């Protein structure tokens, strides 16, 4: 009998505990309801991509020496380099260059290895189209610069978490003038160059 009563008591405490935990959970959910939405209302608000963002690749036609390094380092040999060897000048003359962004994985190897720095990553990420062949960019399309989010009057630019001032979690309502947490890239360079001569002396 005593054993049975103990069982009943244990069961009751367990049930009470479960009810307590559900109550705690409810209070957490309730608390979340009064927080501001963290979502970005996309076509009207856009995040400013970070400076290391690996978006659509930009290509400078005049710098290219048609060495085809980009093709060799590409995991799928994607860039199409069309050139003609000019025997008189003993130089390759680039005729056209294209990358299909429907196939590109944006790994950035080509940008990394390009000997003349004619390739670079932009912050453009809106690459949707009705036909996948529209994403096959030729050298003219690759030479276009993306439209900056901050220049678009229709769009409210929002900063990403890493670019917000210290303590701010939500980009909404943070003033443009508020400095990001930590040092800016140019300040890091400045600091490094100020320290470097000192190291040489010692």
């Amino acid at each position, binding site marked *: 009998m005593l054993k049975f009563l103990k069982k009943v008591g244990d069961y009751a405490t367990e*049930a009470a505990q479960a009810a307590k935990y*559900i109550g705690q*959970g*409810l209070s*957490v*959910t*309730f608390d*979340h*309801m*009064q*927080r*501001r*939405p*963290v*979502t970005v*209302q996309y076509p009207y608000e856009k995040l400013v991509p970070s400076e290391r963002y690996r978006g659509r690749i930009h290509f400078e036609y005049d710098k290219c020496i048609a060495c085809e390094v980009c093709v060799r380092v590409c995991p799928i040999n994607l860039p199409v380099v069309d050139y003609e060897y000019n025997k008189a000048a003993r130089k390759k003359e680039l005729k056209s260059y294209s990358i299909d962004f429907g196939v590109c994985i944006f790994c950035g190897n080509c940008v990394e290895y390009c000997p003349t720095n004619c390739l670079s990553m932009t912050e453009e990420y809106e690459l949707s189209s009705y036909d996948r062949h529209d994403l096959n960019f030729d050298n003219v399309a690759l030479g276009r610069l993306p439209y900056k989010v901050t220049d678009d009057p229709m769009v409210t630019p929002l900063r990403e978490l890493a670019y917000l001032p210290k303590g701010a979690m939500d980009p909404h309502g943070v003033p443009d003038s508020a400095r990001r947490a930590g040092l800016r890239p140019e300040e890091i360079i400045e600091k490094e160059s100020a320290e470097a001569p000192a190291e040489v002396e010692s």
Partner: protein
Amino acid sequence: MSPGIDLQGSFIQLLTSLGLPPQLAKVVWIPLPLLLMLIAATVGVLVVVWLERKISAAAQQRVGPEYAGPLGTLQPVADGLKLLFKEDIIPAQADPWLFSIGPALVVVPVFLSYLIIPFGQNLNITDLGLGVFLWIALSSVAPVGLLMSGYSSNNKYSLLGGLRAAAQSISYEIPLALAVLAIVMMSNSLSTVDIVGQQSGYGILGWNIWRQPVGFLIFWVAALAECERLPFDLPEAEEELVAGYQTEYGGMRFALFYLGSYVNLILSALLVAVLYLGGWELPISVDWITSLLGLDPATPWLQVITASLGITMVVLKAYLLVFLAVLLRWTVPRVRIDQLLDLGWKFLLPVALVNLLLTAALKITFPAFFGG
């Protein structure tokens, strides 16, 4: 306890004074509250769908529907219209008759149950002597429809969903009925009007929730399970069963299921408000206020005010419970099927039985407090 506003009596009186025989006047009256209730239930669904989406969004720190109408209030209307204009598809291998009857069989009993919801002493479609029992009986019809649509879809997910719905409804019907039985025992009547009447007179202190706290919890958990709301939405668990018995449905037939589930949620919330939260009673008794102000409760303008206050109170209480249900949806994870049946048979049923026995004992011991 004042009888309150009597629209039916006044309407019939008006028509007979215009020269109609009283029987004919009653026939003219009958469709009006039915139509009104049908419209009110449908509009209630639109409000609940909007509320659910907005509250869910807030709980997840999103914005929710925003562009269809002010604050997205027209979103459910847009959804409904979209479903209305969609192609009506019956799968080739499905049983066309059962497939079509299934959704109707789920929705009709839910709407029928609105017969017994009182919004005031005389503000209901009918004051049935059977009252709550009718609701319990009607709510057992819905699983037949679910099973029917699950079976006729000729799809293993649908069949499993239908079977789960039936199992769930059967196991939660019993604690639900036992919780209601305790209430009925206290008020000596199955009629919803009498149940509210028994809670009136003392304001918030007279409500059944103080006398039946355990019953209230059991009823609410079982009602959530009956509505297939999130902690118990196993029959349509999308991660396991695609959409359960709704998998093969689209267009208006799917809309019927959708409508039915939300109407059922409102119905359950309304019944909790009626059975446990004093129905149309205000937290402070109206009779008490009127006697304090020295007003005659039969004054017409006062009757209109108390009647509209009563309707507001019922709806307000119901929507508070709906809010709780939405909050619970984003708090509690879904239970497994064995946990679901364990909770129903091994926890709620014995607790509901003990609650019933305790109520009976208390009724004999303290007849003044527990309705002699």
